[in-house]
């Protein structure tokens, strides 16, 4: 009898649960009003909606370590100068001066800038934010960017006190920044999330939880965060922003959609205003998509510690044996761009694009099998080998579908065109990443790439300086080092010439095998105006975007 009642109770509970289906966890917070569904309430709020594959990891700009997060920081904070598609526009600073030696930057801040809580934005906030970036106790992931400041490297390494960092507020509205070496690109770095200001009182109030929720932070940018978590981030226009009149959007919704196919469906259904299009769907949307360079260049990194790869002629043979056109077609449906040099041509040169000012097609698009054979023959002789099949390289690649395909295509080309053997090792990307350090013998070839932090060839070239902490090629060229050194003491065209020479040296040594420049395909809704994609410091700039009609 008792059991029967119990079962009945259980059954009743089951039924209640299955029909009580009207409320879901997010009901209160993500109702129609906040999602920009204009048809329902008849409101004319302009909400721009887009998605990312992963949650925004942090809204604390100094700690940002991913481009999607940097994009959010760009819109909720105001830097000294704002990088608007490559043009540096005064933002929290009105103007700046540089000393003749290129070392001391003095910024004059605007006096009408306010934080979202009404407090004025001062030079002290910038000083605190930049010191926080370098402070070992704050443990910001991208602290290495702070090496640009005088004593930056020593402060980050804990060898010097934070007070000795070359960042100083002279008064409330004057900020003096001293650099370690002259850096023409420094102004563009001030636009990066990591260089944003921070309010000491708020950071200290919330400690480790600073930025963990919208209210545990203050903002000085065009938007403020109103919701952060449960797979979405909502922003509202910041009425306190000094240039609020130029901001047309009422808000932004950043949704986490892990699957791009779902995102494309939502876009087609009018639920998103911007979506990226994965390469397998790209042919279907031909003509509707736009593309931008993500900034990443991908290459097969050769480990010069390997006895065979230490041979320059063999490295050159491997470079000429790659048909980059075929590679791109087979591994990416031809949607990426073949890279025939090392540095992304779109980064800034002296006045305009580096690639326009310093054009270079170092390796032929379809390779050159005759040249490859010549280099191979010389290499075999130098190495005392009679047959290329005596060479076997261990190639390490991260286990994503795309990387796997890239590795297979390029390995196949080497095996076919040179007769050497490639042994492909797939590992989780965390494992792959851990191998990207100088002095490792765990790989002979490793598939990797680099995305620039600022728009300058140096961002790519600094990696292979002989003593650089990133030099996982174990490349050691006195000539290359000399050009890089020279670039640090020169400015303008002379400096750029040094960097260009460094790039040519790197390629002439066949130090690595450049493969591709990544391009991202995306679609924007017709009624969205003034949205721009960019490759440094953020991926989409919707600050001045508008929704019309």
């Amino acid at each position, binding site marked *: 009898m008792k059991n029967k009642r119990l079962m009945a109770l259980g059954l009743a509970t089951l039924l209640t649960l299955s029909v009580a289906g009207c409320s879901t966890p997010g009901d209160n917070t993500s*109702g129609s009003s906040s999602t920009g569904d204009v048809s329902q309430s008849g409101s004319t709020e302009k909400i721009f909606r887009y998605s990312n594959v992963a949650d925004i990891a942090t*809204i604390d700009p100094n700690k940002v370590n991913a481009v999607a997060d940097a994009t959010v920081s760009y819109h909720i904070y105001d830097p000294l100068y704002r990088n608007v598609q490559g043009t540096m526009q005064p933002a929290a600073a009105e103007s700046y001066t540089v000393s003749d030696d290129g070392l001391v930057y003095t910024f004059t801040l605007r006096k009408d800038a306010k934080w979202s809580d009404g407090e004025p934005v001062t030079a002290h906030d910038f000083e605190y934010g930049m010191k926080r970036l370098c402070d070992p106790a704050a443990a910001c992931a991208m602290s*290495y960017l702070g090496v640009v400041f005088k004593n930056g*490297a020593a402060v980050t390494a804990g060898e010097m006190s934070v007070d000795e960092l070359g960042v100083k507020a002279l008064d409330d509205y004057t900020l003096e920044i001293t650099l370690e070496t002259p850096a023409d690109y420094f102004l563009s770095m001030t636009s990066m999330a990591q260089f944003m200001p921070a309010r000491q009182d708020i950071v200290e109030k919330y400690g480790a939880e600073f930025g963990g929720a919208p209210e545990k932070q203050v903002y000085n940018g065009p938007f403020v965060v109103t919701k952060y978590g*449960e797979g979405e981030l909502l922003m509202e226009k910041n009425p306190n922003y000094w240039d609020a009149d130029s901001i047309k959007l009422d808000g932004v919704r950043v949704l986490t959609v892990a699957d791009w196919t779902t995102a494309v469906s939502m876009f*087609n259904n009018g639920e998103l205003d911007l979506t990226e299009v994965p390469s397998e769907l790209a042919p279907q949307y031909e003509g509707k998509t736009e593309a931008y360079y993500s900034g990443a260049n991908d290459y097969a990194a050769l480990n010069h510690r390997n006895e065979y790869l230490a041979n320059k002629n063999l490295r050159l043979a491997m470079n000429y044996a790659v048909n980059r056109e075929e590679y791109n077609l087979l591994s990416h449906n031809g949607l990426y761009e073949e890279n025939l040099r090392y540095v992304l041509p779109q980064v800034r040169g002296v006045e305009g694009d580096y690639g326009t000012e310093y054009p270079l097609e170092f390796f032929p698009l379809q390779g050159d099998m005759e040249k490859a054979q010549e280099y191979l023959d010389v290499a075999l002789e130098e190495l005392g080998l009679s047959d290329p099949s005596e060479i076997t390289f261990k190639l390490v690649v991260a286990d994503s579908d795309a990387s796997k395909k890239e590795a297979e295509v390029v390995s196949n080309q080497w095996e076919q065109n040179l007769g050497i053997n490639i042994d492909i090792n797939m590992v*989780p990307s965390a494992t792959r990443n851990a191998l990207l350090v100088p002095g490792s013998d765990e790989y002979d070839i490793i598939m990797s790439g680099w995305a620039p932090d600022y728009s300058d060839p140096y961002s790519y070239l600094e990696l292979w300086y002989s003593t650089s902490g990133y030099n996982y090629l174990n490349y050691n060229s006195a000539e290359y080092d000399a050009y890089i050194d020279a670039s640090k003491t020169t400015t303008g065209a002379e400096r750029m010439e040094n960097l260009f020479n460094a790039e040519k040296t790197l390629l002439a040594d066949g130090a690595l095998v450049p493969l591709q420049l990544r391009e991202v395909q995306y679609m924007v809704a017709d009624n969205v105006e003034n949205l721009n994609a960019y490759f440094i410091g953020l991926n989409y700039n919707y600050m001045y975007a508008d929704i019309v009609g």
Partner: protein
Amino acid sequence: MTKYILKRVGISLITIFVLVTAVFFLARLMPGGPFNDPKLSEAARENLSAYYGFDKPVLEQYITYLGNLLSGNLGFSTKYPSQTVNQLLASSFPYSADLGIRALCLAISFGLVFGIMSALNRGNGIDLFFVIVAVIGTSVPDFIMGALLQYFFAIEWGLLPIAEYKGFAYTILPSIGLGFYTMASVSRIMRASMLEVVQQDYIKTARSKGISRFRVTWKHQIRNAIMPVVTILGPTVAAVLTGTFVIESLFVIPGMGKYYVESVQNNDYSLILGMTVFYGAFLVFCNMVVDILYGIIDPRVRVAGK
């Protein structure tokens, strides 16, 4: 009964302790460490390690972790620097649990009905139909099932929302997608179990006593046949309620599923442990409930457990 339950609770606690210990050390054996972004400088890596206390001896970290765990503190995630694991779980579990309960209700109710109907109509067309449904359900993976449901019902026919989780209509497709497999296995198990029970002597006895066919099926056959279904419910409830990566990402539901994959990919120690402890404790709890339910449904278990 009390002794039986206390014994179960004790075993459960030991299980969780062993689990935490094993995962704690295994996570640290994974190559790469949590700060493996190739962009990070050596100094940044060291600073981050110190910030999270990973620079201390592993044993010390372990003891600290156990201490924090006892007070319910799961620590800060390394991937989401300003958020605690508690915070991440608290915001994602309600979604996973909500979806999971809906999926389970569908799965159990339909699964049982299908299984019983199938068994009662053994060999004819109805049976064949339900068997085919069950085979499809157990053999089609959820990412195909989910994608098909989404494609036809939401994209092609526009009957239901494509994604997100903002109201009843949004829950239908993911609940079916998530529950289909469980429904199919429940129906298969129920069918097999029904067919086994029907050959037992007590069923013949009951029939020969002249009890109606309906009463025999309802009171004797189903009651006895349901035991194997209860057995699989423990792990199933735990698995379904704590989120699934595929269905959640396909239907844009901010549940826990993604953290299983993400935490391991990023070597996010605190999140890996947090997920394991949470899932493990939940699984152990569900199994304990099942053990206790056995005792209620089948008195023989209760006696044997004493």
